[in-house]
């Protein structure tokens, strides 16, 4: 698999995420579900799907609709670089959605989807973002919870 999976992180959460990944990868794959999975991250509060929706539709926070489109009639300009998010929750399990958010390179080493929970390994990180992940563990859980509601 992509060597990018193994970047050492300093944050405890990052280690947890990576550990979850390795566990997921080592588990025997079930038929039709031969894709990376990640268990819930350690968070300080329960997931909030509504906040997840806010993050997904926020151009500066989630950035998702720069590339994706989806069932968000209030967002005027959506992207067409990636599949629609509509129905994502019926195509993927929460563990698969979470894994994709954490680092999509585990699915596809060439993907353009940014790694939302990886703070290290990128080249020339802007000073303002150094050592920081795009989303926090809480936000990853919020977005995962929200995506899981997109059933059609």
């Amino acid at each position, binding site marked *: *698999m*992509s060597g990018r999976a193994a970047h050492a992180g300093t944050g405890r959460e990052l280690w947890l995420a990576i550990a979850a990944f390795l566990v997921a*990868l*080592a588990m025997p*794959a079930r038929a039709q579900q*031969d894709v990376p999975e990640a268990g819930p991250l350690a968070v300080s509060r329960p997931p909030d799907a509504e906040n997840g929706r806010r993050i997904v539709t926020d*151009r500066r926070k989630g*950035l998702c*609709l*720069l*590339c994706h489109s989806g069932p968000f009639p209030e967002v*005027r*300009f*959506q*992207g*067409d*670089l990636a599949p629609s998010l509509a129905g994502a929750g019926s195509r993927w399990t929460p563990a698969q959605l979470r894994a994709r958010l954490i680092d999509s*390179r585990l699915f*596809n*080493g*060439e993907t*353009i989807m*940014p*790694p939302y929970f*990886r703070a290290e*390994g*990128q*080249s*020339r*990180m*802007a*000073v*303002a*973002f150094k050592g*920081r992940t*795009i989303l926090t563990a809480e936000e990853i859980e919020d977005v995962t919870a929200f995506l899981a509601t997109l059933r059609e």
Partner: protein
Amino acid sequence: MTGRAGRAFALAILLLGHALADDIPANQRLSGHDMMGAEAQAMQRDDFANPAMLAVKEGEALWKAAPGEGRPSCQSCHGDAAESMKGVAARYPARDASTGRAFDLPGQIQACQTGRQAVAPSARESAALLALEAYLSLQSRGMPLASPRARGLEDAVLRGEKLYRQRFGQLDLSCAQCHSQNWGRSLGGTRIPQAHPTGYPLFRMEWQAIGSLQRRFRNCMTGIRAEPFPAGAPEWVDLEIYLKERAADMAMDAPGVRP
């Protein structure tokens, strides 16, 4: 795991091969002008409507003016720009024969200011430097970009291509992923251009000003949350050289206009 790893490996090889071969065929290349709306195109083409032409006028005045008591003007060394500077911008960046260093056009102007005119060089992105650059670029309008590779800049072309294909920043994206693999698509409503540097410096409505190619590079780098190289850095020059190789033979249309 082994079956999966094997498949992932095969896929990686396939994608890598694809990525390396994956750029725009010469007959499908489009300039930024070609890809924008009719209104902005018309504004670029009409010299009376193109706001960058103000900078060109300013550049012409600077070309002719002595920078100080007893200091030579650009024109006193080079003569009429319409003659002596015809086609020059189309073959920049160029290598300085004595130092071996590649200069982009603003870098060359700065070198003339310090070396020949003995004045302090105009700063990158200053109105004066952009004006001179715009004036000189206009003298190459309609002329084909000369291939840097054919001019002995092969090493810089290779370094520039490496930068073009390298992922940068928190978003971990490369120039190629947007401009070679996803051009024409909508990035949150903005159509991704092919990144051919035929029209710089250009006037950008969003900036409300004329700006350089390096300013554009910086915008793309900060967009992916990467730390831009410093103004005038050799990395920027290498990138420009690679983009000009990629755009070789396309017609110069500076000074451009962008929304």
